[in-house]
């Protein structure tokens, strides 16, 4: 496999160094940048994100990340969302009773989990279906989560009938939530693979080899 050039979209969100190093560890060449052309033309784009949904959306729009992601997906070119970088790919987010628009790549609303202790912080199990690509080489492993919000119901509307349904991996914290989702070139995880030790590196490796 030729070395893949990966761009991590730098729109001012949190610890990007770990994602960079983890991807380098499994053999990718990684640039952390907000450069439009570089993000558009990379072999794969990683959209990170921590903190608030609305703040991440603002950051992404400021660097025209919405356009970059749209164009990439139109051409079938890979995008990986991580944590809030996954959440913003859904239609909407609700924080403090206010609805914010997401990027709308998948239907669904990101809302606060109904659990006695939040954030959902730590190592948890997930239920990956057999046709998952990214979980192909890991089973029964725990991944590192840190989030208070999630997608708890996923209803595919009529406009999705022409597309293959996404491959959905569920997790549970108080309620069931989407822990990972894969639709061809568009892949996203609620957990942090770059912080999930050997299992996370294995998952990133599987993703890299699927590109």
């Amino acid at each position: 496999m030729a070395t893949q050039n990966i761009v991590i979209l730098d729109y001012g969100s949190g610890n990007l160094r770990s994602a960079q190093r983890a991807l380098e560890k499994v053999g990718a060449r990684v640039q952390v940048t907000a450069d439009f052309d570089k993000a558009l033309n990379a072999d794969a784009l990683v959209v990170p994100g921590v903190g608030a949904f609305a703040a991440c959306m603002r950051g992404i729009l400021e660097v025209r990340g919405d356009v970059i992601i749209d164009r990439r997906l139109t051409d079938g070119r890979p995008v990986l969302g991580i944590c809030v970088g996954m959440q913003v790919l859904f239609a909407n987010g609700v924080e403090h009773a206010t609805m914010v628009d997401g990027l709308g790549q998948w239907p669904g609303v990101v809302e606060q989990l109904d659990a006695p202790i939040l954030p959902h912080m730590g190592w948890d199990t997930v239920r990956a279906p057999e046709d998952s690509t990214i979980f192909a080489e890991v089973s029964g492993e725990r991944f590192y989560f840190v989030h208070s919000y999630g997608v708890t119901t996923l209803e595919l509307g009529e406009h999705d009938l022409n597309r293959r349904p996404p491959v959905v991996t569920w997790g549970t914290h108080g309620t069931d939530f989407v822990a990972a989702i894969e639709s061809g070139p568009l892949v996203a995880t609620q957990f942090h693979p770059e912080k999930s030790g050997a299992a996370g590196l294995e998952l990133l490796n599987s993703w890299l080899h699927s590109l």
Partner: protein
Amino acid sequence: MGTTPTVSLAIRVIPCLDVDAGRVVKGVNFTGLRDAGDPVELASRYDAEGADEIVFLDITASSGDRQTMLDVVRRTADCVFIPLTVGGGVRSPDDFDRLLRAGADKVSLNTAAIADPTLLRQAAERFGSQCVVLSIDARRCPIGVSSESGFEVTTHGGRRSTGVDAITWAIEGTKRGAGEILLNSMDADGTKAGFDLELIEKIRSVVQVPLIASGGAGSLTDFAQAVDAGADAVLAASVFHFGQFTVSQVKEALTESGLPVR
């Protein structure tokens, strides 16, 4: 999908390293380490042993050495792919920013939050609650100090009394944006007589964020007791550094008590 609530989250076992001018202090009794004083090498060792997270506590007195800590964080994030919390000497949102950019996932506040509680909200709004850890050094009120719960907050490593009620402070801290509490019992710390279970229970009953229990671990059975009292994670320093037992032994003991671990 069903909505049967299940608890599958693993109890986190967290070694804490005190770092002074880029070197680990307190005794370190590992064999086979090239440099036992190097925080990066120790963090890697704990990672290999199954640590779920690493905490660095920067006890450097001089601000000139803060740069050294950033370098330690960077080098650790380059090779250790588990969560990293850094505390000590953090006074502003810009300090948060520097540590997060260097590769920290969470930053803990202690003395500075007591001095200026608005710092919690400032950090949470800019970086998200998930990376704001409120570190509380609590003790039973000594003679001459009183609080409603009987526990007070101390600062400067337990040397200074604040008279602030530890339970009230935990409530206020989470309202102001802390996403996790690192609860250190100054009474139990160093005694190896077990965690302060009463303190853990009291804090657990008033906060809805994850709670890390610290201080007093001396035997393998201590950890499950802290969890039963309400801790989501257990932290220890010297029992690991002196090789009294390993992270994996703690996990085995938790498993024997029927608790989930990674």
